[in-house]
């Protein structure tokens, strides 16, 4: 098997494509994982010898985009790419047709339709299916029923468990994970998580310590330990890169995602939604920046799509700041950039001019980046300064500080009467419920009736789901634990400093995310100090140790930081990530964090994933 020396993976070639360079700069080189995933993809493509066309389940193009570009596919004779649709496949003079699909029954029916209508044309093309992330017996049975299973030459799976999302961030991009785990009791995504963590350990060494809190965390840890026993013969001889792993269930902290994120990146996600690392923005503010090359083609009605990650210097600098500090940061950057452009006046000699010119591309990129973020900040400022945003935030903060959480809230009532978007209402009602450890039966019934009467009875399915996951619940005991948890963990900080933060609470302008407080306390002084609170949160907490092969025990240098991988089962918000990055950067922090999750979420996308309303009639 693999016998890599301890340091080999740290000295991979340094010249890399710009697309992935940002993955290599972090504490842990996540590009290794990306390269491994790319290799797997190449191997599958080479299995189908000859020219090929890929038929894409459209959902997958986003996650795949984080792994590979079209050029990689082209190198392996992929000549055409189509979107999966019913009916007959478009003509393409290729030897192989490969379907890249999620294991979903409805997609199998489309594939069957494609394959059957193809036979009639009797052009001899070979069919293959690549299931992402895994094969499914149910799907294969469906293909068999449709009579096309025999026509498929290769059926394979592409394990896309953990996708490198940024230099310190991994995501499984699995939208349904929370719903499956906590609502449908389908723990398949936990199995994928464990598998993903095994892959990670194969590449970065065994993680000596595993901590966790919550039912799902326990399951994942158990599976990891079991898998490790099963593969006992194939120990990897790699010096561990991670010192510890912390597994956290999303349901131990239901509050945080419900709150409106107030970091720059968090707000971009709240307002416009970031999907697979991209955001679509209203084009008006950006129109002036584009050159009018093809006048007819430059339609300002199309949203502007931007990629957001640490490859962009300015974005990496500002994304985790509280939004109220963004104006100052941008203006500081503007000063620096204009000063740089001013240097041309000082360039007198040919050498100096050459020097200036050589820097121009970088300066122009910086300028264009500044222009974009100034425009985005303006767009968001319009929203954060609105009365509606302010009122909403006020109520959230009242709930989080425990003000009147046991009464019907008039602001929520008003929002229902105004028919504000249902998701907004649900976020607030759930937040009140969580901050009150459940609502009095009378109050819960009142909210439910108002919601059903105003938005339609069919939403009882959604309300039911929210109750099953614990986001909404009747008060069962008279004791409300939340104030104790808030005080012990210092979840509310009166004097949060937005400009020069000294505590993680800056990410929500006062509220310190519970999940991150747990992480912080674990690093120092340890969970033993908060046993009482841990007992109030659902699920067990635990610690496991994994044996390291002899000779792989790390000898820490004086003052060297520990590296902890924090895995959020069921999703994590950008504000929580910002808080962890803040902890990593603290001078006396002692721990640096790498973050992994099943999915990047915000309150809206999260509640949406729990709603139950198939297409309206």
């Amino acid at each position, binding site marked *: *098997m*693999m016998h890599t020396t301890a340091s080999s993976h740290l000295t991979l*070639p340094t*010249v890399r494509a710009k*697309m992935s360079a940002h993955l290599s700069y972090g504490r842990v080189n996540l590009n290794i994982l990306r*390269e*491994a*995933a*790319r*290799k797997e993809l190449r191997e599958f493509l080479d299995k189908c010898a000859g020219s090929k066309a890929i038929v*894409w389940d*459209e959902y997958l*193009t986003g996650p795949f*985009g984080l792994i*590979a*570009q*079209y*050029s990689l596919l082209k190198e392996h004779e992929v000549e055409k*790419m189509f*979107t999966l649709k019913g009916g007959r496949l*478009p*003509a393409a003079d290729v030897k192989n047709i490969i379907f890249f699909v999620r*294991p979903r029954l409805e997609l199998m029916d489309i594939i069957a339709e494609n394959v059957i209508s193809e036979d009639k044309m009797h052009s001899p093309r070979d069919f293959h299916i690549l299931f992402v992330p895994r094969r*499914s017996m*149910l799907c294969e049975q469906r293909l068999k029923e449709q009579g096309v299973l025999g026509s498929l030459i290769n059926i394979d799976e592409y394990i896309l468990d953990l996708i490198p999302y940024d230099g310190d961030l991994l995501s499984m991009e699995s939208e349904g994970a929370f719903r499956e785990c906590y609502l449908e*009791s*389908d723990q*398949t995504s*936990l199995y994928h998580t464990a598998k993903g963590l095994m*892959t990670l350990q194969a590449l970065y060494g065994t993680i000596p310590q595993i901590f966790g809190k919550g039912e799902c965390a326990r399951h994942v840890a158990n599976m990891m330990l079991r898998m490790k026993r*099963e593969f006992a013969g*194939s120990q990897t001889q790699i010096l561990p890169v991670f010192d510890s792993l912390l597994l956290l269930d999303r349901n131990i902290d239901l509050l945080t995602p419900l709150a409106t994120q107030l970091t720059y990146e968090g707000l971009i996600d709240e307002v416009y939604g970031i999907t697979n690392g991209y955001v679509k923005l209203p084009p008006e503010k950006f129109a002036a920046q584009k*050159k009018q090359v093809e006048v007819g083609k430059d339609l300002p009605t199309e949203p502007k*799509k931007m990629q957001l990650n640490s490859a962009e210097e300015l974005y990496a600098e500002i994304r985790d700041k509280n939004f109220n500090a*963004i*104006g100052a940061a*941008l*203006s500081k950057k503007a000063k620096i950039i*204009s*000063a740089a*452009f*001013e240097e*041309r*006046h000082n360039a007198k000699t040919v050498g100096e001019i050459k020097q200036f010119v050589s820097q121009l591309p970088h300066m*122009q990129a910086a*300028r*264009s980046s500044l*222009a974009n973020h*100034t425009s985005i900040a303006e767009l968001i*400022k319009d929203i954060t300064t609105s009365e509606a945003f302010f009122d909403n935030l006020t109520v959230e903060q009242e709930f989080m500080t425990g003000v009147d959480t046991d009464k019907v809230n008039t602001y929520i*009532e008003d929002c229902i009467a105004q028919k504000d978007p249902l998701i907004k209402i649900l976020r607030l009602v759930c937040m009140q419920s969580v901050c009150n450890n459940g609502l009095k039966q009378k109050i819960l019934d009142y909210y439910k009736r108002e919601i*059903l*009467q*105003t938005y339609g*009875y*069919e939403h*009882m399915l959604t309300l039911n789901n929210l109750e099953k996951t614990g986001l909404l619940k009747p008060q069962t005991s008279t004791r409300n634990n939340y104030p104790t948890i808030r005080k012990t963990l210092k979840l509310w900080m009166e004097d949060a400093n937005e400009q020069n933060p000294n505590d993680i609470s800056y990410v929500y302008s006062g509220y310190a995310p519970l999940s991150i407080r747990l992480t912080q306390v674990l690093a120092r002084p340890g969970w033993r100090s908060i046993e009482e609170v841990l007992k109030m949160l659902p699920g067990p907490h635990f610690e496991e140790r994994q044996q390291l092969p002899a000779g792989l025990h790390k000898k820490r240098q004086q003052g060297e930081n520990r590296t902890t991988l924090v895995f959020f089962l069921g999703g994590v918000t950008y504000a929580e990530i910002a808080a962890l990055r803040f902890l990593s950067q603290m001078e006396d922090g002692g721990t640096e964090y790498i973050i992994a999750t099943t999915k990047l979420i915000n309150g809206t996308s999260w509640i949406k994933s729990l709603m*139950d309303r198939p297409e*309206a*009639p």
Partner: protein
Amino acid sequence: MIRGKPDEDEYWNSSKFKAFTFDDEDDDFTRLKESKRAVNSIRSLVEEEDEEDDVEKVSWSGEPVGSISWSVKETASSIRSTGEVRDQSFPKINTAPSLPKNSSGYSLSSLFKGTTHDWTPEETVKRMQQGKVYSLEKFRSLQDKLLLLDEAVNAHDGNVITAVLIYLKKSLSKENLFRELITREIALRHYIHFLKEIEEQKLLLMQYRDHLNIRDENKRRDFLKSCLSLPFSPDDATHVQDHYTLLERQIIIEANDKQVESSGQADIFKKYPRKASILNMPIITTLYYSCFYHYGESDGTYSSPANIRKTFRISDKQFLLTCLGARAKLKAWFDVDALFTTKNWLGYTKKRSPIGFHRIVDILQKNNAPVQVLQEYVNLVEDAEQKISLAQKYKCHDVIINTYRDLKDRQQLIVYRGKVERGSSEYRKIEEILSNSVR
């Protein structure tokens, strides 16, 4: 980007670029404007080379050129309209050195190859997980089958659990299978999920959910009726009952109103033709509709607001807000007035509201109520400060003048005189008060 310059401060001060200066005390708005201005002034220097090289190439749709989703669209179109430039750019994007192709590199699947011995339940499940050949047929006895099932459940892999369940369903009687599943909650849930997927049978809410797929309103109503007998929790049962009653009534109202509208008998439909059918609308929307088209009908009719209010137990607040919205939209100010008027036992009338009058004012204003109507409700706002600010917002001069008069605030009256039009009735009113009052 800027390399350290020892004389940086001096450099700043001597800069020829004076287009903007920064003041760190400024608020964010100014700052954003500044960075915008800075950006713009820089651009004029380098207009000729916009967005090149360093930034990822982006197509006109904003999709990065060479990205997979962009390429799907691009390679799919056989006629490439303006694609020639883009085509050249494909190979340029990815120059990452790939790892060596020999087997010493990392391959995910190669990392997980265990050894197999006998195919015990545990081994079989493992093989299933690894996508290897396996056979379930050799698990014949009930006990063996259950061992296999438990092993699958232990693995937490839904795919494997489902595959085992498919086999058990084929090879066991329903009674046997159900008896065993009842004691295995996780397996049971998977089984339900599996049944749901293949549409064999549905349970309670899942069955209720099906109504969403029925388009014909009569069939939908009948389906909801059939749901009434399902053993829902008391709460859910009430909601399902209400849902059924609502649709039943909507069907009656819709048929009736359609007929009345097309016959041209009622003025209200002529003046305000219905924009959409009322079928499948939420109850509050239905109430609004009823307050709009069926106001004043006797309690006995299905379509009357009073009947709907009672049948569906609509709260006072919701009823008032909905009614107010509908009547204000029709500019039926008399009806609006009546909504708030109560008589006490002496026969005096008084205005009451379950909602603060400031909100009533907002709603009326949104429906373009005239000042005369608005000021009546502004006057009812209890908090003096809020009253003044609302009055100023909606230009209810009388309210403002009277309030200052009552407060004997001569100074404010003089200030306000400067704000109204000279010679207007408000102006004269202020003059009168000022001259009548003795300092």
